[in-house]
């Protein structure tokens, strides 16, 4: 299934103020892979993720999703395939109630009402958020917002799932729930996080980013146990591997 392939070829990105956030990123993710992106604050993880659906377009190099090269034109096509959960859930929830918000994507896909309701319920159930259905998002706690943001993306049933720090505000149980949700998602997924334990649990492959470049790329078990590599990138061993 070539349409689940993600290919970054020498991708550079410069913010308008001149910050070189990406300086030649290169990797290829094939169908069904689960990849963790780790790195220091400001390494470029969020910037990279925003290239997956054309929120940002590379200033140099090409991003290919499936068989489409990412450009301003193909962006819309690609939006249907890639679901992204951003770092700040507030950015993602813009409708007056949780239900409306989760239903927004499926409705725009043109599904009929019954299907939409079904999708919303399934997605909310996934994140244990059925009880929040009729609440307005600005009355939710931080973690509840994150959960709803995840549901609103899952309701679109994307081919490729990308998440930026999905667990930062979740309580440990919701984090576990997210981990099992992610394990159950069989298409390609990319997760950027400082939570190395989560990456170790969910992702078989791990890419370390440093100053906009790929510093290391390999199986998670291998990468996340290399103390020196991690420390050079402001990281440390996953907590569950540290002895107390």
């Amino acid at each position, binding site marked *: 299934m070539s349409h689940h392939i993600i290919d970054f070829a020498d991708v550079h990105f410069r913010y*308008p103020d001149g910050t070189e956030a990406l300086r030649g990123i290169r990797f290829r993710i094939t169908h069904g892979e689960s990849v963790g992106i780790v790195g220091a604050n400001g390494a470029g993880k969020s910037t990279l993720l925003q290239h997956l659906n054309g929120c940002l377009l590379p200033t140099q190099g090409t991003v290919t999703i499936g068989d489409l090269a990412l450009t301003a034109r193909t962006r819309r096509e690609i939006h249907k395939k890639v679901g992204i959960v951003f770092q700040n859930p507030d*950015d993602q929830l813009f*409708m007056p109630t949780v239900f409306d918000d989760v239903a927004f994507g499926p409705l725009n896909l043109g599904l009929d009402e019954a299907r939409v309701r079904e999708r919303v319920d399934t997605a909310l159930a996934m994140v244990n958020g059925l009880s929040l259905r009729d609440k307005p*998002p600005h009355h939710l706690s931080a973690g509840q917002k994150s959960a709803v943001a995840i549901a609103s993306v899952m309701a679109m049933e994307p081919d490729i799932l990308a998440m930026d720090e999905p667990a930062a505000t979740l309580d440990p149980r919701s984090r576990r729930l997210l981990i099992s949700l992610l394990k159950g998602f069989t298409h390609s997924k990319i997760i950027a996080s400082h939570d190395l334990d989560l990456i170790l649990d969910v992702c078989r492959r791990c890419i370390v980013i440093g100053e906009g470049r790929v510093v290391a790329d390999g199986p998670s078990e291998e990468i996340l146990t290399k103390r020196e590599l991690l420390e050079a990138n402001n990281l440390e061993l996953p907590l569950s591997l540290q002895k107390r």
Partner: protein
Amino acid sequence: MTFDERYFAVGRLDRLSYGRSLIHRLDPRVKVVATLLFLITVISFPPHEIVALLPFFLFPVLLLTLGGIPAGFILRKIVFVSPFALTIGIFNPVLDTRTVTVIAGLPISAGWLSFLSILLKFVLTTGAALLLVATTSFPGICHALRRLGFPPLFVSQLLFLYRYLFVLAEEAMRMTRARDMRTFGRRGLGVAVFVRLVGVLFLRTVDRAERIYGAMLSRGFRGDIPMLRKFRISFGDLAFLAAATILLGAFKFYPVTEGIGRLAQGVWP
């Protein structure tokens, strides 16, 4: 589209004001007053004046070079905002076709002269405003306003506006992005969703104001924003103001350009 792109590199303009050049170090009050003098002088020329306006370009050029401000950037911003003045001005050549003078056999109409005059004034005045921010910084201007007698309440909330301009604009931008990612084709881009988006943004803004107020209170806020930065008008500042006033006066009341022209014609007939 980022906030910077939408508003044509506001962030970059802001960043230029962190410079430390001679011009940047002048007292903001002096710069505000000089800019206003400059504007009034430029504007006070009659509608068909052109040649007498040319010497005024000395001021932006001095600010650009001494302040280390990229000229191309400022020029592009000027062009970016020109449509209104151009639209109004372009009627002049159409409506006023009296021939004023003939140069090298070409009849020059009054309308073209006044249009050109509007253009020159537009470049000068717009440039002056942009250069004022680029060399003074917005907080600097706010302090100047306060020292020039604007009410403290007004100046304080102006500082808040500046601080949260970028925060909220980014927030709005990311909300739009989330909407656009889940809309396919035209659906979801209409007024109904827009109104809710703005409503949500408004509620969040109000909540944020509450939290900011809490943060301010917990740091001892009592209705007044104290400032450590003290501005003292130095000799250099006064000299700058004096020089600017004298030059402006000279350019206003002596036909400098014409004088130079005649001088040149006298030398090279």
